[in-house]
C-alpha cells in the first residue's frame, strides 16, 4: 500500500509540477519542484496517518492552494530581505528574486502610475481590467462578475487599450500585456 501510494503520488506529481510551472512562474520566486514535493509530502503524511481519510478533490486542492500561498509569502519575504541586503552585502544569487535589482527603482514608479491610471478608468471597466491583469481569462472574469463573456472580453480589451494609451502619454514607449 505504501509503495503503491508513493508511486501514485509521484505519477500525479509530475502533472502538478507542470501546472505550477504554468500558473506560478519562476519569475515570482516560486520553485515548482519545491511546491510539488511539499504537496506530495503533505498528502503522504495525511494519508498514512489516517487510513480512513477520504482524500476528496477539494481536500487535495486545499493542500495545493495553502502550499502555494505559503510559498508565495516565503518568496515575498525573501524578496523584501534581498532588497534590504543588497546595499549592504551585495546581491545574493541564491536568492530567487522576482525582479532584477537594477529594474526595481523604475518599476516602482511605473507601478504607482499604473495603479493611478487604473483608478481613472470608468468604473465598469476597472474591475474586469484588474482581474485580467491578475491573469484571469475573459470566461473567468465573466463568471466572477456576472457579465456575459462577450461583454467581459470587450470591457477588458477596451480598458487595457485605454491604460496603454494613458501610460504612453506618461512616457512608456513599449508596453506588453
Amino acid at each position: 500500500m505504501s509503495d503503491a501510494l508513493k508511486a501514485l503520488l509521484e505519477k500525479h506529481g509530475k502533472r502538478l509540477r507542470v501546472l505550477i510551472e504554468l500558473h506560478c512562474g519562476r519569475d515570482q520566486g516560486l520553485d515548482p519542484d519545491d511546491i510539488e514535493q511539499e504537496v506530495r509530502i503533505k498528502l503522504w503524511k495525511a494519508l498514512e496517518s489516517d487510513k480512513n481519510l477520504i482524500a476528496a478533490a477539494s481536500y487535495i486542492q486545499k493542500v495545493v492552494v495553502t502550499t502555494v500561498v505559503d510559498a508565495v509569502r516565503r518568496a515575498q519575504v525573501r524578496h523584501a530581505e534581498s532588497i534590504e541586503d543588497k546595499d549592504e552585502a551585495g546581491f545574493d544569487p541564491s536568492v530567487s528574486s522576482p525582479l532584477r535589482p537594477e529594474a526595481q527603482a523604475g518599476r516602482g514608479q511605473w507601478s504607482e502610475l499604473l495603479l493611478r491610471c487604473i483608478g481613472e478608468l470608468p468604473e465598469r471597466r476597472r474591475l474586469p481590467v484588474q482581474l485580467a491583469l491578475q491573469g484571469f481569462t475573459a470566461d473567468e472574469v465573466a463568471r466572477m462578475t456576472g457579465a456575459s463573456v462577450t461583454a467581459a472580453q470587450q470591457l477588458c480589451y477596451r480598458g487595457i487599450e485605454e491604460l496603454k494609451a494613458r501610460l504612453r502619454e506618461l512616457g512608456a514607449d513599449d508596453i506588453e500585456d
Partner: protein
Amino acid sequence: MATLNLNALYRDATRALPQDADVRVTTDETLALARGESLGARQEAVVHGLAASSEQAQAVRIAIATQSWAEDLAADLAVLRRPTLAERVAVWFRAATLPPVFAACAISLLAVAAWRIGEPGTTMPDATVPQWAADDRLFGADFDEAVARHDNADELFDGGFDS
C-alpha cells in the same frame, strides 16, 4: 525608454494583502470560486479582493488550474484505498450490533452439523404414511343373501326367542 509588462507590473503593485478584512478571501471561498460557485452576498467583496491582491488571485488561479488534476488524483486514491472483501466483512462484523448472537448461531449450527455427521443411523424415521387397503375389506366378504332374506325371523336366534 521603458518596456512595461502590465500583468507583471500590476501583480507587483498588488503583492500585499488588502488592508480591508472584508475583501480577504478564505481558502474555502477560493475553492468555491474555482468550482464556479457563487458566494452569494460575499461574491462582490471576494472578487474585489482578487482584483486587489495578486496573492489571492494566484490562489484562485492555481485552484482552477489544479481542479481536474485533483479530481483524477482523488479517483486514483479511492481505488487504491478501496478495502478488500475480507476487510469489508471484518468492518461490517465489527459494526454489527449483535456479534454474540451471530457467534451463538454459528456454534449451534456447527453442533447440529457435527451430530448429524457423527450419528448418521439415528436419523429421523420417515413419517408414517397411511396405507390404503387394496380393496374395501369391511364389506369384502360375501354377503349371505340367504340370511338376509330369511322370512323367519325367529331362526335368527335358533328359535329360542320367545316372541
